[in-house]
């Protein structure tokens, strides 16, 4: 018999986790669909379940000089209205799901779910996001690319919970997110892309690209980005084909019910090309 607990504080949640293993339900928009068995019966979860959507410590959005701290269970729609949330993340959230799902879905859920097509992960990789995880006795902060280890694989210990998403405050000359899906809302991405650039006197000061749904995790390659820092905008534009060649080994999508390898590869590369050409 699996257990269900509804802790009313983070301390209570961490106490439960120090004794037994649980899976988390935040908004429920993924977990309920995954485990629903097409009946009127309660959802037949296979593990102990902890409901965390209402825990006050997971619902705050705060800032300091360098970072924005987003509670793991703050609903996506509330983030759209929060002045602290970076515009690139807001642009992405607007493309995610529908109003109904944004009212319950959370960033913590998108991170914990670790789908290669998780839309919010793409700007979060771009913005050097840290994932804060808490246990009864410790707090760890991991880079998102270290926390997410593969398809639905995360570096979360059995006694830990995702508490906050920590996003660097950054200004760019241009930053954009593009999602390619079959419908305005409620569509899981075929591919997604985010790019950001800062130009100082026509010279590249910062350059970042992130690709969703083309590998087992979001693709970001600082080793390629750094090759084009301190180049002029003209030199960057002249290097488009070279940049594309450098990214090709990492754009390794799969065929599935939503799209196929050829389409995903071509569109991803076109999105990269388009971002640079339109600068």
């Amino acid at each position: 018999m699996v257990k269900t607990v509804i802790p009313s504080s983070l301390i209570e949640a961490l106490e439960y986790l120090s004794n037994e293993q649980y899976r988390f339900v935040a908004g429920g928009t993924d977990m309920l669909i995954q485990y629903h068995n097409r009946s009127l019966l309660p959802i037949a979860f296979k593990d102990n379940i902890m409901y965390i959507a209402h825990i006050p410590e997971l619902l705050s959005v705060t800032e300091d000089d360098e970072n924005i701290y987003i509670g793991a269970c703050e609903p996506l729609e509330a983030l759209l209205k929060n002045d602290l949330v970076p515009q690139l993340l807001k642009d992405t959230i607007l493309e995610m799901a529908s109003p109904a799902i944004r009212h319950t879905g959370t960033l913590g859920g998108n991170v914990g779910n670790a789908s290669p097509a998780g839309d919010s992960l793409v700007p979060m990789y771009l913005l050097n996001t840290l994932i804060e995880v808490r246990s009864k006795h410790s707090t760890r902060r991991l880079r998102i690319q270290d926390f997410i280890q593969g398809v639905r694989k995360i570096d979360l210990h059995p006694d830990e919970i995702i508490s906050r998403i920590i996003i660097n405050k950054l200004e760019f000359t241009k930053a954009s997110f593009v999602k390619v899906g079959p419908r305005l809302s409620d569509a899981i991405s075929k591919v997604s892309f985010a790019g950001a650039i800062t130009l100082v006197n026509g010279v590249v000061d910062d350059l970042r690209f992130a690709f969703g749904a083309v590998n087992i995790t979001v693709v970001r390659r600082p080793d390629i980005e750094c090759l084009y820092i301190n180049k002029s905008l003209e030199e960057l534009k002249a290097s488009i084909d070279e940049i594309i060649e450098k990214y090709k080994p990492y754009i390794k999508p799969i065929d599935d019910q939503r799209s196929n390898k050829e389409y995903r590869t071509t569109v991803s590369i076109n999105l990269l090309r388009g971002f640079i050409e339109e600068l």
Partner: protein
Amino acid sequence: MTEIKFRLNGVPVTMESDPNRRLLDVLREDFEMTGVKEGCGEGECGACAVLLDHEIVNSCSVPLANCINKDIVTIEGFAKTSRYKVIKNAFEEEGAVQCGFCTPGMMIASESLLNKNPNPSDQEIKIGLSGNLCRCTGYAMIIKAIQKASKDGDGLW
């Protein structure tokens, strides 16, 4: 079993139930609120939409555990308001109802939108309805109906 308290259409409710149940099943089976429809059961069609703390949610993907101390309004409760009458009249006038299966969800989506944005643009209406599917009308009449409701209900939202 857990004691769960919430407000349903303005009335305080206390029930002993399994927190792992879907809100959709609780509303239809325990309270016979069959205006809440099950379409896809996956959060894609919006037929099961209700208001939770006055914002649209899909009741097929809301666990009962997440309803504790919340304020839930279904189409049955919303039908008692003057805002509903304006939306109903606009849907009728503009031909926004055909088979009717999506209509409760569409009306909940309209209320959730107009409550936040009493004078939405066409694009804002499309975003507001983007989680609700209709296989009859082609949406144009529904968009017109919301424009009309926004105009006729001036001051209500």
